[in-house]
């Protein structure tokens, strides 16, 4: 292991060493507060690292591929991780599960996501996926005394392990068909030879694994139950960063087999059918949900559908739109779950109608929540609008206008259930006096709201970042 490799893969080297430091500190000092601070410092260092341009290339004998692409993805993961842990603290303390290990596991999950985004070999992709998934199983079940959390962890675990089986079988058949496991060598093989049916079976099995992880229809049934039962901050992480990670890995795989999928009508038909189903089913099911966490779970299915539109488009514009949307979506969804966590830890208020009159008592909190809801709907001038616009524009560019139309219609449906929350917060009288007493606004939420707002008004900087990420992604 040459020093050069370690430096080239600095974010991953750093995250690995920091993980070990965290475990040692937690084991000796046994103070959750200290572990929290150190984890935040770790995330901050990672975020800073991502903001500076760095060397690109293959590290550790073509195992990792460091590029602006992985840099952008790592930025999203580290930012989500940092926001999630700052929003978790008071929730965990209230639920009496303030373990230092919680933060360590969030950090390790982020490390797994970073591996997925930087993987250049199927082994690393698989290990990254498993590190992330296992960490999320633990996070889902971390409320040990809570039966619903146990149950959610159980379901998540069984379905997650089931889907990794498919994913792995896909890898195996692709290996058999191409004789390679290094992604770019698979790409070269496929450029020179035609794909066999063994390859197509392998790719579809691998896609099943991916579709499970991003909870696309028809592999979405686990999502609402798991999201509802898990502790809210854990849900925030698994609905955002883990989906973003699955999408970055999906883009890596699709780009390397693009010589077979480009202009392949079967591939485009299959994937666009799934995208349409995901958008429609997610949004329609969300309409009838009264529980906010379930509503957000179904809407997160719909958002996965929007991002799939970018993958179907199959162009650099489409992929960079997915990256940008992953960032914006992570921010606004973490924000929305953060507000729910804040209110949930004071009172057992879970349905949209319980939020009636929030504006009267806590105007700032209501304002922040409204901003997240509007942005999730895709109303300008917030970040969600730009993200969706870019996704659908990419689809139109690739000659898939009908897909963009379905997407816009689906978003119009989503306006109903998002705006319903806003209407309750602003227009209705509270159900009881001092309903929201004791709810203290977490400054992090204001920060997230500000970021979502800024991404909507001045998107150029970030869009360029995402565009560059794709331009240099695989041209070496």
């Amino acid at each position, binding site marked *: 292991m040459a020093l050069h490799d370690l430096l080239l893969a600095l974010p991953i080297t750093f995250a690995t060493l920091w993980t070990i430091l965290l475990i040692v500190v937690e084991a000796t000092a046994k103070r959750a507060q200290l572990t929290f601070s150190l984890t935040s410092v770790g995330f901050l260092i990672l975020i800073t690292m991502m903001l500076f341009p760095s060397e690109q290339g293959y590290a550790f004998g073509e195992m990792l591929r460091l590029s602006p692409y992985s840099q952008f993805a790592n930025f999203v993961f580290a930012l989500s991780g940092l926001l999630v842990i700052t929003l978790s603290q008071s929730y965990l303390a209230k639920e009496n599960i303030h373990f230092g290990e919680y933060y360590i596991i969030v950090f390790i999950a982020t490390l797994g996501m970073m591996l997925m985004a930087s993987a250049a070999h199927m082994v690393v992709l698989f290990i990254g996926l498993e590190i992330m998934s296992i960490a999320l199983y633990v996070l889902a079940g971390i409320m040990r005394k809570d039966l619903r959390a*146990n149950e959610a962890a*159980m*379901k998540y675990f*069984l379905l997650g392990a*089931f889907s990794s089986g498919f994913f792995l*079988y896909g890898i195996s058949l692709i290996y*058999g068909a191409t*004789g390679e*496991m290094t992604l770019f060598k698979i790409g070269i093989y496929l450029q020179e030879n035609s794909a066999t049916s063994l390859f197509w079976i392998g790719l579809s099995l691998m896609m099943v694994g991916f579709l499970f992880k991003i909870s696309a229809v028809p592999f979405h049934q686990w999502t609402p*139950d798991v999201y509802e039962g898990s502790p809210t901050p854990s849900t925030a992480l698994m609905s955002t960063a883990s989906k973003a990670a699955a999408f970055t890995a999906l883009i890596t795989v699709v780009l390397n087999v693009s010589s077979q999928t480009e202009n392949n009508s079967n591939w485009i038909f299959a994937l666009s059918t799934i995208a349409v189903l995901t958008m429609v089913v997610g949004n329609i099911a969300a309409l009838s949900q009264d529980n906010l966490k379930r509503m957000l779970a179904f809407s997160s299915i719909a958002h996965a559908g929007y991002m799939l539109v970018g993958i179907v488009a199959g162009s650099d514009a489409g992929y960079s739109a997915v990256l940008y949307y992953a960032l914006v979506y992570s921010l606004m969804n973490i924000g929305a779950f953060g507000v729910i966590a804040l209110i949930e830890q004071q009172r057992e208020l879970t349905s949209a109608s319980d939020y009636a009159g929030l504006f009267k008592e806590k105007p700032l909190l209501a304002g922040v929540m409204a901003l997240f809801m509007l942005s999730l709907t895709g109303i300008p001038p917030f970040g969600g609008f730009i993200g969706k616009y870019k996704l659908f524009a990419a689809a139109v560019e690739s000659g898939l206008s009908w897909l963009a139309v379905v997407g816009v219609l689906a978003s119009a449906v989503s306006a109903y259930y998002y705006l319903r929350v806003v209407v309750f917060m602003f227009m209705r009288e509270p159900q009881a006096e001092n309903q929201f007493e004791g709810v203290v606004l977490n400054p992090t939420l204001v920060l997230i709201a500000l970021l979502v707002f800024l991404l909507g008004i001045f998107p150029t900087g970030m869009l360029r970042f995402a565009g560059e990420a794709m331009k240099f992604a695989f041209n070496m």
Partner: protein
Amino acid sequence: MHIELNHYLWLSAFMFTVGVIGVLVRRNAIVIFMCVELMLNAVNLSFVAFSHFLSDIQGQMMVFFVMTVAAAEAAVGLAIVISLFRNRQTVNIDEINLLKG
């Protein structure tokens, strides 16, 4: 008779199918998990078979890592089973349906 690659792949695909059906049909969480292990082993068999017939070592390396991952998964999965059992005294996933609806 001669053993060909297809024989191994057939065996592997058979095991995988049985595993998948087991996951979907059985109700006991631990047995479902065993069926997942069955699926992973089916995949391992196909890796080793490809590795042998390609004369390429990568397939066998992958098996090595799959085993490690399976061990880690087993530790966490069984911990989840135990924590569930402490609160509920059942591992039958039909009785676990607080979250339906």
